[in-house]
């Protein structure tokens, strides 16, 4: 049985890419193995842990649940992309300062979701943060420091 292939075109982290890949390749496998952006991680490949979170046409999605072919024509941003734009540099610095990560495996996905939350620019309680972020699992930190980091950046951004 020969592998069925498809050609996909999309913009990833600002660069146009065109590749012919097996149709069954999911988006994060595509980004990691074909493009070499290894910042998006795979923790479960069944849509639970959030480690694979990437932004597709402005929305954070689970990159393991989307076939690369489904993102044809889309604008995809990964942690590498939003690092380069500086969009969340304040949050990244706070994560480091507050030690809101240990092994760091969940962190890119965590930051993608947190970026979306912080973009709402509204007052939020610690419970609100916990609720919004609940689709991103972390096995190391116990979450408290992540809530601290997001809360303090939200306060800084609203205050500033």
């Amino acid at each position, binding site marked *: *049985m*020969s*592998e069925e292939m498809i050609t996909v075109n999309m913009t990833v982290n600002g660069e146009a890419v065109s590749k012919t890949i*097996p149709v*069954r390749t999911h988006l994060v496998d595509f980004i*990691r*193995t074909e493009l070499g*952006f*290894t*910042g*998006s*991680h*795979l*923790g*479960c*490949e*069944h*849509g*639970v*842990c959030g*480690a694979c979170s990437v932004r597709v046409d402005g929305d954070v999605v689970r990159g393991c649940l989307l076939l690369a072919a489904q993102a044809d024509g889309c604008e995809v941003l*990964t*942690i*590498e992309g939003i*690092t380069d734009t500086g969009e969340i540099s304040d949050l*990244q610095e706070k*994560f*480091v*300062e*507050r*030690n809101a*990560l*240990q*092994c*760091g*495996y*969940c*962190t*890119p996905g965590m*930051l993608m979701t947190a970026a979306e939350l912080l973009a709402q620019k509204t007052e939020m309680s*610690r*419970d609100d*943060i*916990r*609720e919004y*972020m*609940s*689709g*991103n*699992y*972390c*096995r*190391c*930190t*116990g*979450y*408290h*420091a*992540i*809530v601290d980091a997001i809360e303090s950046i939200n306060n800084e951004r609203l205050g500033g």
Partner: protein
Amino acid sequence: MGFIHPYDRPNSYIGRTLPRSRAKRAVAGRGRYTDDITPPRTLHAAFVRSPYAHAKILNIDVEAAKDASGVKLVMTGSELAEMCTGPWVGTLKVFENMKAEPQHPMAVDRVCWHGEPVVMVIAETRAQAEDAGELVVVEYEELPVVINKETALDPGSPVIHANLGDNKAWEHTLGSGDVDKAFEEADHVLEETFYFGRHTAVSLEPRIVLCEYDKGTEQLTIHTSSQCPHMIETVFAQTLGVPEHNVRIVAPDVGGSFGLKIHTFGDEIAATAAAIQLGRPVKFVADRLESFLSDIHARENRVKAKIGIMNDGTMIAAEIDDLSGVGAYSQYPRTSVFEANQILNISFGPYKHPNYRARAQVVYLNAVPTSQYRAVGHPIGISVGEFMMDWAADVTGLDPFEIRRKNIMEDDSYPRPIGSGIPMKDLSHQACLEKLYGLMAYEDLLSEQTELRKKGIYRGIGVAGFIKGTAPSPVGYYGAGGARIAAQDATTVKLEPSGGVIVALGVTDQGQGVDTVMEQIAAAAIGCSMDHVRAISGDTDATPYGGGTYASRATAIGGEATYQAALDLRREILHMAGILLQADPNELDIVDGHVVNDGSNEPRIPLSEIGRIGHFQLGELPNNYQPVLSHTRRYRLQDSPYIYTNGIHGAYVEVDVDTGWIRHLKHWVVEDCGRIINQQLADEQIRGGCVQGLGGALYEHCIYDDYGQLQNGTMADYVTPMMSEMPDIEIDHIQTPTSESELGAKGAGESGTGAAPGVVMNAVNNAIKPLTDGRVTEQPITPEIVLGALGKI
């Protein structure tokens, strides 16, 4: 020389919160985990695993798989066994009478658990390897399954390994005093039975190996997500018959480990054998379902406990009877009986009851092998002991804090043994308890609880004290047990030509911040700036042989080795500076990377000059002096089996008495992990540990059916804690340095996991107390169990 201990110097790095350099790259998505590395021509492994819990393998047909697209190799268990020096036997000499069946890396003629690897397929891509795996036809004949630990020792029970005679792996008893007499004399004797569900580590990054074999140099290089690279080197070399010095293990960034990644797994051996046979890189990543079916599991215990209490609340006797259901084999090389052993060792550990008796029976089951997972045995022993303590408080009319005040060992009473005979020293139960009382504002919580109860809101307050064994010694288990597992650790500290310092560690970093902590220790001991120190860890070719990171040992053991090696280098620098400056080294000091006059801090010569001269301009030194700019020191515990730590947790929960739903509102920890090197890192270890413990206490459970089929092998079905379910965790410390080392650090990585289950169980029982005589005695504490205790179902 007025040498001041680094921790007493002004602005010392010891005790300071500093960020981790690895964190900076991880937040940018530039961490480097094993799966981020793919050398050219890498092949990928997939496994055909047993669909049965117990079956004979009648025939394996791999022909169709071999012809499938992209396939390079199909290997069966017996073919793999021929490449290995022999099966593993998971016993240690210290566990007297322990029995274990030899285990091949992949099943040879019989499968003993659902998920055991049977056939490996190697192909150009993982998808092709999985496709070909589906073409492998294995004929099985089902065998009777042993999955219930309670009946595994019954005379009529099927026996998993006929050679062992029965399903018992080990039985052990220990104790002190006259327990029976004490129970007779006690005013109250309380007895209860507890059940603890089997769970597993669920590191977010699964197990992974990337194996490369160079047929020219005969060198084997394995990148792997491991806590113990040297141990992996030793076991893989021995199992595959490769000389150990030809094996290099590299653990780059490791995406969570928690004890899972101190073990050796058959599928990883198989992938390595394929790389040797094919001469091409082979990568194997466990997918999540495979992780649930093949990563070590832990817990699965039934514990009967009994205590004798006097009317004034004094506990005079305690007894524990544990039944542990381990897996189909004893996990090599650490065994599967440590969990039971630790339960016996530490139960009722904070208390001074004079009579103690404990027994464990460990039985094999047709399930995934169990072994050490964060806080081995402690969650069980602590839950049981602290439950009994609260019950005794109820019976004698004392407050939970009051009964603990009465029974805990006094801070000025050490050294002394606990009931299990294990020696304790440098503990601070009293100081921790009083600090927690204030930290959680206990009296305010009590009044809030009373007020809310009037409104039908049921909140519970829990307290749980603990001891935790950290940093085991080589005389305790592994060394004395005959395993090639190092309990010593080593650090090399060297001065570079630039004056910078490299710290090469036998211990490893999985995100705890070990590298940073060691840099802090070395910088403080030498007297240079942190910017000039860089740690290297996780590469057996670049670091001295050590045990790695397990059992909360990195800072306690590796830290002391680093400290002593750094002091050696400091002495050498001062000696060399004394020669160059014609000064008495005793009158020199090192501050901020400069050799200075002691006392006045007047700069004399920078370390960059020492580095330059020491490496390039040796002619400036006398002929009879060869400076040694690289120092390695080893450290091990001596007579003590562990460095014990202590502490106490508090919890505040709300129970919905209609649905059984538990909301964990707030968690407090007061912990004594000795000298703290970096407080934020210590705090975050404790917080992360707590949440892992809460997961086991509230949600996590590997569920088997009667046929030994694992029922919940996805992260949707096996539930780990989410952010919204977890509370804020407030932490404070008492610091009683261990007298075992000069640095004084104890372990901090596991105690959160050890004590959190007990405190949340106590809090839930405290919440429902006004409504029922029933108590929650089973973990995970599902809503169903709460409703059962409330008498509603």
